[in-house]
């Protein structure tokens, strides 16, 4: 069977659901961040697959580049916040962090 659009879409669907599971089921803030990266990568696979099989439309690549830019900015800010939480609470479990001031 020829490798087509559906194959790539199924990979991205599985990756997306794994990322959602990581976001929902894990307590460590950095694990939540990793789940988020998996979700963004799944979206990127979709962009590129539609660009490839919709007649090599390059605008999908540009959209994927913007997703990567946003992921980089989000990772930097999120890790800064996580470090700050660690300084205050000495742990980073997202379900136990319940106040924003010292």
């Amino acid at each position, binding site marked *: 069977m020829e490798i*087509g659009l559906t*194959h*790539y879409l199924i990979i991205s669907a599985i*990756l997306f659901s794994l990322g959602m599971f990581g976001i929902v089921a894990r307590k460590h803030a950095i694990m939540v*961040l990793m789940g988020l*990266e998996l979700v963004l990568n799944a979206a*990127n696979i979709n962009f590129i697959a539609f660009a490839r099989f919709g007649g090599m439309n390059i605008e999908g690549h540009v959209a994927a580049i913007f997703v990567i830019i946003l992921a980089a900015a989000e990772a930097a800010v999120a890790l800064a916040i996580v470090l700050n939480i660690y300084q205050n609470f000495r742990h980073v479990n997202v379900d*136990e962090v319940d106040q924003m001031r010292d």
Partner: protein
Amino acid sequence: MDLITIGFYFLAALTIVFGAIVVITKNIMHSAFSLLFTFAGIAGLYVLMQADFLAITQIMIYIGGILVLIIFGVMLTTHITGVDVRSGTLGKFQMIGAVMMMIVIAVSLIVVFMSTRWFLAESQPVEETAPQIGNLLLTKYLLAFEAASMLLLIAIVGAAFIARKHK
């Protein structure tokens, strides 16, 4: 089975197996390193989809940047040597709910993807993508490109400001 098919299934298995390890394993350091193989597999899938520039970008930004940042974050916030008692997993009830949610999302997405009749253009000759992406970024998407540069600047300054040591 030609080489492309074998390569596709190898990369797909690499991506999904290590992606599962990322979310399942207890040791957070192991999941950070499994993320490396997931990102590498995704870069390989980009190569199979003729997106050469995106594959290099994936390797440079995700593996070289975001992953290193995540590993730094793990090492700065987790007690690596001792078992961190406070970072347990969910209760049984919530875990069952999370697994159910994951299965429902995966099955419904796959059913939608398989049952839709996608409009497919006939395959065109593939050229290098980097010059075309550069053209688009500096013509049609110029405003978004500049906004992204401002966003990155603000994110850098804001992250440095938030993460600094408080007196």
